Structure formats: C-alpha cells, structure tokens
C-alpha cells in the first residue's frame, strides 16, 4: 500500500543486491536508525534501559550469533549459555588483568576468545549430525559452566564465586557496571549491535554465507560441488561463537554488572536464544531482532499485566508466564513455523501488491 516502486529499477549488480533494494524500505531503515541512535538516547530512563532496551540489544546479538550457526549453517546448538559465559569471563579477566585496555577491545577480544572455544567445540560437527550434534553441544554448556564454577582463577578467587564488572569508559563516559548512565550503556550496546548486524548481513550474503546455507540445505551435495565442510562448519561455529561471546560480555559488563555463572548462563539461556531465532525466523537477520524483541517484551508485558495490573503474587505470575510462554511458542510454531520474519515478508509482499491479493 505504501510502496511506490515504479521507476525504482537497478542498473548494476551492486544496487540489485543491496540490503534494502526498494527505496521505500531504505528510507524506513534510515528513519529507524535515526530514532535508535538520536532519539531514544534522549528519552531513555533506567526502567526502559534495564528491562527492555539493553536486554533486547544484547539478546539480539546472541540471537544473531545463534542464527548464523543454526539458521544459516543448519547446526543446532544448545550451548549458547556456555558460550556467553566464556565471553563474560573472558571480558572479566581482560578487564581486571588489563585495566587500560579500551572496553571495545575487551568486548571484541572476548568474542575472539569465545570464537576459539566455539571452534573447538564445533569440531565434532564434522562427524556428528542433527540432534546428535545438538545434544553434543550440551556438553559445551555443562562443561563450561562447571569449569567457571570450579576453577577459582576465572573469578579471581572471589569468595562468592561472582564476577563484578569494573567501570570502564568510552570517551570519558562510563558504559559498564552499575553506575553507567542509561543512555551510555544503551548507545554502547547499540553501536556494537549495529556493527555486528552489519557484519552478519555481509557474511551471509556472500561466498561464506552461501557455503553455510549449502551445508544447511544439503550437505553432501554441497561437498560434491566444492564446499569444504570443514571450513564451512568451523567458520560458522567461530563466527557464531564470536557473536555469542560478545553478547555474553555485554550481558555481564553492561547489563548485569555482576554475575554468577550457573544463574546467569545456565541452560535456560541456551533455550531462550533458540526460541528467539525460531520465533523470529531461522536464517534471517531481521528474524533475530524480531525474536529477541518478542522474547524480551513478552515477559515484561505479562509481568506488568499480572503483577502490576491484577496484583497477583509474583510466583504465581511467574508460573503463569511460563505456561503462557510455552503455549505461545507452540502456537507460533503451528501458525507460522518460519517465524516472525516470514510473517513480515508476507505482509510486505501484500503491501507491495496492494490492492491486488497476488
């Protein structure tokens, strides 16, 4: 309905394969970016930061990461929580060992370390496929959490076994720990998310992305036409873990401020991220965002409704919330197994063809 595409044609391949080939979409994207970068920081408050925006940003990064591995490369992983823990602990060790190191480097180095760990745990994927692999990734989840729990070096021998984020600044503004202003943590996470999302888009539209998708869609044929499964799978594990590691570092440093490994990075987080990409849409960058938004917003909304609105005890609300989340997930899978991204695509198609039905 809103699309006016006549005359919006492509005269070269660069234009033809751009991320938003339709001018209208491009404008909408710029507008969204303007709001995200220039408007929200001005109006953000602590509640929105802590319960909606920053968790959304951080989970989006994690969802992007898992979507690369599962959605694009077809390797189901249940080790997301463990890999986030690697990112968080790497960030903690780096921050405490090298206080001078810029926080951006810390975050990206943490991602790098997680990538190496991810590649190591991805090695079995060369022999194991499908659910066997999914279960195998649980080994990473349990082993890593156990490791960070049992080896005091990781939490600098603190008595509680907790790690606490020291304050680090960007251009003199605190962005980590409990004293960081809302807008600063928000902008910090947003910037990193923006860069990573852009990178994810680039990786998935080119040679590497196609090698992932080929492995996903038909691994034997992919190998026969020249895709090296070793490189494809390990690069997916590496890149995916990098994203998840960064998410873990931000989750710890900017969002929680302090973390205890079994609580913050348990298996439930693995499932949470998996839900995000399934509900959002496998193999879709947009889906990662949509799924993260859905899974972050829905509990907040339910809680507001049940506890704030109806005044129920929190434990009953929590149980009801679990029930509703479970039911909604099933409902979603039945109604649109390809997720919100597909729903969005269909809606867009409808709008483009408006007033025609097809």
């Amino acid at each position, binding site marked *: 309905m809103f699309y006016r595409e006549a005359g919006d044609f492509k005269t070269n391949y660069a234009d033809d394969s751009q991320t938003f080939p339709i001018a209208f979409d491009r404008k909408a994207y710029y507008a969204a970016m303007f709001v995200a970068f220039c408007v929200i920081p001005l109006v953000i408050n602590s509640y929105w930061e802590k319960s909606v925006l920053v968790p959304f940003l951080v989970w989006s990064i994690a969802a992007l990461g898992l979507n690369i591995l599962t959605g694009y490369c077809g390797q189901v992983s249940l080790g997301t929580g463990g890999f986030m823990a690697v990112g968080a602990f790497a960030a903690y060790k780096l921050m405490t060992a090298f206080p001078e190191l810029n926080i951006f480097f810390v975050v990206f180095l943490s991602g790098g370390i997680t990538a190496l760990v991810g590649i190591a745990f991805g090695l079995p994927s060369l022999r194991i496929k499908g659910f066997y692999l999914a279960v195998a990734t649980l080994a990473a989840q349990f082993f890593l959490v156990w490791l960070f729990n049992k080896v005091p070096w990781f939490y600098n021998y603190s008595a509680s076994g907790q790690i606490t984020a020291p304050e680090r600044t960007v251009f003199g503004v605190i962005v980590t720990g409990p004293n960081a202003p809302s807008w600063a943590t928000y902008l910090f996470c947003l910037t990193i998310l923006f860069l990573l999302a852009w990178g994810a888009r680039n990786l998935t539209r080119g040679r590497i992305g196609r090698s992932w*998708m080929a492995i996903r*869609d038909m691994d034997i*044929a992919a190998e*026969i036409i020249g895709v090296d499964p070793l490189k494809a799978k390990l690069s997916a594990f590496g890149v995916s873990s990098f994203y998840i590691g960064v998410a873990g570092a931000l989750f710890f440093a900017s969002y929680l401020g302090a973390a205890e490994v079994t609580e913050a990075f348990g298996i439930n987080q693995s499932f949470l991220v998996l839900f995000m990409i399934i509900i959002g849409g496998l193999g879709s960058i947009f889906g990662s965002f949509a799924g993260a938004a859905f899974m972050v917003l829905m509990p907040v909304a339910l809680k507001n409704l049940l506890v704030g609105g109806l005044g129920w005890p929190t434990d009953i609300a929590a149980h009801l919330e679990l029930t509703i989340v479970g039911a909604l997930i099933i409902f979603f899978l039945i109604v649109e197994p390809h997720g919100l991204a597909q729903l969005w695509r269909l809606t867009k198609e409808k709008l483009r063809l408006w007033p025609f039905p097809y």
Partner: protein
Amino acid sequence: MTHTVAEAASDDLEYAVKEIQHGIPPRVIGEPVMEMKHITLRFGGVTAIKDISFDIREGEIRAIIGPNGAGKSSMLNVINGFYHPQEGEIWFRGKKRGPMKPHEIARQGIARTFQNIALFKGMTTLDNIMTGRMTLMKTGMLSQLWWWGRAQAEEIEHREKVERIIDFLEIQHIRKTPVGRLPYGLQKRVELGRALAAEPKLLLLDEPMAGMNVEEKEDMCRFILDVNDEFGTTIALIEHDMGVVMDIADRVVVLDYGKKIGDGTPDEIRNNQEVIDAYLGVSHD
C-alpha cells in the same frame, strides 16, 4: 564511395583468419581427460562395480547406461570421489588421482548434477548457481565482513558470469525464486546451471532426463548439446532411457550387474548382442 561488392568479398578473405576466431572452431574430440582403470568397488560383501575400465575424451558426450542396479550411479560417485574404490586407478588430465575428498575433486574441475535433485532448497535460483562458483571465489572472511571493496567486486564479477548461465538456460524469470517452489523440470535446469557455473572440465550428469515428459526431455537434450557445443564441455552422463542416449552421445559404456558389457559408438552398441540380451532381459522394467 567506390567500395564494391567484390571488394567486400575480398575483405572477407582478408578476415578469414579472424572469422575462425569469432565463429568457433568445429567440435573436436581430443585426448582422454579421464581414464578409469580396473575399478572395483565393494560395500561390505556386495560388489557394486567389478573391474571396469573406460575413458572419457576431451569434448565428447560420453554416456554410461545400464539397467537399474547396474552400478551406474556408483560409477559416477567414484568419478567425483564420493566413493573410494577398493581397487583400480583413476587418471584425470594425465595424472593419477590420489585419495581426495569430494570438494577437492570439485576444485579440480569436475562438476555434477544429481538423479534426485540436490538443490539447496532454501536458496534462490541465483544463489544456487552462485554456490556453484564456490570453487572459483577467493575472498577471505575479513573482506566478506567489510563487503565493500574486494568482496563486493568479486561478487559482482561472478554474478556477471552466473547471469550468462541464467540467460543461457532461459531461467531469467525465476532468478530470485526460492528453488523449493519451482516445478521439477525447472529445478533440473537450475541444477544444470549450478554445475555449469563451476566452469567444469568434466561435467557429470546423473539421469538428467529422469522423470521428465517428452517436451522437457527435448529441452534438456538441447541444453546438453548446447553446453557441449557452446562451451566445449566434456560431458559424462548416466541414463537408462536408451533412446535419448543414442541420439546425443558420442560413445556409450554399458554396465550390467557391475560389469562392463559394451563400449563404443551408439551404432556399435545397438548391434552388440550382449547389450541386446541384457536389455531384453529387463525389457519389462
């Protein structure tokens, strides 16, 4: 303005040499590109291929035929390295081939299609064919991440080549359609496109006409001949439809129960008593 017709004709002679360059030389069948020597392949106790030797020459269309279960598909899988024979030697372009993974063999210039279409269902026609050029693309992870510059330039360079193939196969209208939604005949064509995209030295086609109606078969035959003709690609194909094979192949190998029972031009095969018997034996098939 005194340039006459006669002069124009002599100009033609003058440009005769160039003419040959621009018109393309007639099809020449050259030396063997691939030689299979005494190949034996076993699965556990079952012998799928027994002591088979034959060669494939540069520029020819070579057919491997035989009834179901004759070992044709296994043979193709041996050629592209998916199965490793227990005995025998494989020579490719004058060199004996050592143990190699399928993707390494693809890199050497062997591409193939599959009997039960093996397209990447979640990707578009364009992406499927682009994936066929995987072996020819080089940019690394960091360039890809940055995109602008090398990665994009490479992408565009290969897109241009792929678009030629799309044009050649007349599948422009489905360029951006996910292949899962395409009808069978078009999927077969896309798969041929994916194999062609690799610019192979040897193209293997596994029952390219299986499950097609007469019209689609005719189309596919035309494309196979055109590929061989326009690009000079060496083609080895498996078919159990004798009729089609006899029309388009230069030479034919006949397998039966894992053994070679005939090898020669279509005419020779037609008159080969052993082949006739084998086919009569399965004529109810």
